């Protein structure tokens, strides 16, 4: 069944056929035909953002919290270039996005026309794949293929650039089922020999650790369930990257907390001292490994990843397993059970005793105060007052992000949205909007810093327009806290441009955008302020004034191995040598 329709109609029809219910976007000259079709239908809800970067982050939040791809509409030129940060963010964190951009008509391409940019050229390195459509007959087929590319294998963002004359022209609509099967079919089943080798290693391991990442979340709820079953069955300790929080519940008894630069003492030392490291859907990022030469020197390493280029990229592994986490874990469990569910229980008991000693260090401890709100305390109270609620948390980027990761507990996957790989300040507010659109009845909190929040604060307008009751929990230290911390540790306390001299009055800002503003300056008022934030049915900014010069610990300084962590009470002077200073 092929039908004739305009390119613009095809876009809307293809989105409907792909089951899209929500798009985030911003119209412009080169997108007018498509926006005309959006106007004439009611199946797809369009959320008008205030800046195209906001659209991409909102779509990321929508995608990460639902497991479905996020869809974005932007116009040509500045519309597309504004989407570049979000595309790069989604590429780094493996978030499926489909961005449809308008383009000047085909006969004007290359003439430096008004709002013309080489969008496919600009976005080629920051998408999984992109297309410029020159023939309306190819449009629908390409959109369907784009959904396949974005969501299969390692997910990621794709972009389709659609010239305006292609939107107006009439062509043949290709429904999803008629799209020819592509050669692009990433492998999901792992090699059974390699999986058997992993099981054999599991049976013998004396000091094992699971090191899990965002790949578990991307593999779907089934992957998290299988992971939990495997952890419970083997009684191995488990840690996770920033991107993987929630795959294993924070309340689980085998949970060591997050690992990495600001991870827990027990997680990082377990990684350093283990004899078997089982990497499940993580990528040995430099925030995780610290100094590579000293990274977990005594361990045999297994790596389950759907992206072959992630395996052996920076860390050599003995047991590489290419495949989807859920498929591989299913086979691991099957084979491990069939061989009698064996582990080295005697050795494991000793390993847990060692881990308990590390836990006793209480690495997340901090000196609380009666007079000033400590940021860690603020997060602890936020956690305590919202635990057990139907809750989603987004963050901006910086100290507050790390504190949120350390002090908030995630019991389920898809509940935690943060910019990990790219570290995009300004991610959290639009992401919280995308999450709230997908989950209108749920509590959505953006844990923010004052500096990050300002980077996309225009999206408060979006929250107000669509009555999205997102809670903006700003830990306001009037500083670029993480930059300031590094300047203190690395640059002789020369605080070059790391403070904000003219911050807005966030209460008035909320008011100006039609939301509610709450100021909290004293620890005694903190619970009341958080409860007032939760009670208000509408967008809220809680301006929480926190200790200005608090540092985020534990910390593995740049260029140091896992077993040279700085703890909260440690002297930080000279902790990072000049070799470490060149690293990021």
């Amino acid at each position: 069944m092929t039908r004739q329709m305009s390119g613009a109609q095809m876009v809307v029809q293809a989105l409907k056929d792909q089951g899209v219910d929500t798009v985030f976007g911003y119209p412009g000259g080169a997108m007018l035909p498509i926006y005309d079709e959006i106007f004439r239908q009611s199946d797809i809800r369009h959320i008008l953002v205030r800046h195209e970067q906001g659209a991409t982050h909102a779509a990321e939040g929508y995608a990460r919290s639902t497991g479905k791809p996020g869809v974005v509409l932007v116009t040509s030129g500045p519309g597309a270039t504004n989407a570049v940060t979000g595309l790069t963010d989604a590429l780094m964190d493996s978030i499926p996005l489909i961005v449809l951009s308008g383009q000047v008509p085909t006969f004007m391409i290359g003439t430096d026309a008004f709002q013309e940019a080489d969008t496919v050229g600009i976005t080629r390195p920051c998408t999984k794949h992109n297309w410029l459509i020159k023939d309306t007959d190819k449009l629908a087929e390409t959109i369907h293929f784009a959904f396949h590319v974005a969501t299969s294998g390692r997910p990621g963002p794709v972009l389709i650039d659609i010239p305006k004359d292609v939107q107006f022209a009439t062509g043949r609509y290709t429904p999803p089922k008629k799209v020819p099967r592509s050669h692009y079919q990433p492998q999901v089943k792992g090699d059974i020999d390699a999986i058997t080798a992993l099981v054999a290693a599991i049976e013998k391991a004396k000091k094992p650790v699971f090191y899990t990442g965002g790949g578990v979340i991307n593999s779907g709820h089934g992957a998290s369930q299988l992971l939990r079953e495997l952890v419970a069955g083997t009684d191995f300790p488990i840690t996770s990257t920033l991107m993987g929080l929630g795959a294993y519940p924070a309340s689980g008894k085998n949970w060591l907390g997050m690992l990495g630069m600001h991870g827990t003492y027990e997680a990082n030392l377990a990684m350093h001292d283990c004899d078997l490291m089982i990497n499940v859907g993580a990528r040995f990022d430099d925030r995780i490994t610290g100094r590579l030469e000293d990274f977990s020197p005594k361990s045999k390493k297994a790596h389950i990843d759907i992206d072959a280029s992630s395996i052996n990229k920076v860390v050599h592994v003995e047991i590489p397993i290419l495949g989807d986490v859920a498929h591989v874990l299913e086979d691991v469990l099957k084979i491990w059970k069939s061989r009698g569910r064996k582990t080295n229980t005697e050795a494991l008991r000793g390993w847990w005793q060692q881990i308990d000693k590390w836990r006793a260090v209480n690495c997340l401890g901090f000196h609380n105060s009666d007079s000033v709100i400590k940021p860690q305390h603020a997060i602890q109270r936020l956690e305590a007052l919202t635990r057990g609620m139907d809750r989603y948390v987004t963050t901006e980027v910086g100290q507050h992000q790390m504190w949120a990761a350390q002090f908030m507990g995630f019991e389920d996957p898809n509940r935690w949205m943060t910019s990990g790989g790219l570290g995009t300040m300004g991610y959290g507010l639009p992401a919280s909007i995308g999450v709230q659109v997908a989950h209108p009845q749920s509590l959505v909190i953006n844990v923010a810093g004052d500096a990050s929040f300002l980077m996309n604060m225009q999206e408060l307008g979006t929250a107000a327009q669509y009555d999205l009751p997102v809670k903006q929990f700003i830990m306001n230290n009037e500083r670029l806290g993480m930059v300031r911390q590094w300047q203190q540790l690395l640059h002789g306390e020369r605080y070059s441009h790391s403070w904000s001299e003219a911050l807005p009055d966030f209460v008035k800002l909320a008011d100006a955008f039609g939301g509610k503003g709450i100021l909290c300056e004293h620890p005694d008022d903190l619970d009341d302020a958080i409860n007032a934030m939760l009670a208000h049915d509408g967008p809220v900014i809680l301006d929480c004034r926190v200790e200005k010069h608090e540092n985020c610990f534990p910390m593995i300084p740049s260029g140091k191995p896992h077993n040279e962590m700085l703890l909260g009470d440690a002297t930080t002077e000279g902790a990072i040598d000049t070799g470490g200073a060149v690293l990021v």
Partner: protein
Amino acid sequence: MSALVLKKGASRRSAYDLKNPLSDTIETHTLAVLVDNEAGVLARVIGLFSGRGYNIESLTVAEVDHLGHLSRITIVTTGTPQVIEQIKAQLARIVPVHDVHDLTVEGASVERELAMLKVAGTGEKRVEAMRLAGIFRAAVVDTTLESFVFEITGTPEKIDAFVDLMRPLGLSEIARTGVAAMSRGT
């Protein structure tokens, strides 16, 4: 231990099985990459090399299957075994890439390059250039009373040798195609 199994890309007989993966020896590998002949595909491949800091020693591309819209890109690159493996994996995950073959590790292969050399001169030098061209089986594709254009086909090393010999004899211009390569046997 079984090798990493790739659906497309490097074969099981990868450099990892043959050599120390952590070796820092710089190796030269010839890769044959079969791609959809679509707009921007070459830019994707080149962008991958420049974006991730890999080397390209030689690169050739042309359509090889008109009906199937397939092009073959032959890339000669250098790097440690780990970098070479990474290049192959990165190439293989580009959506329009069908296959990546490492001709250097997948058994014997043949490599050929075509070059054209303009050599200007008269008298003894002109005679000597012609004589050497005969030894190298270079064909004369254009001639004037004061110049030749030679066409030579062979391995890059053979062409290098011919170029070196022509230099003192009046070499004024060189055009090289880059390497085309293919595995031996079926």
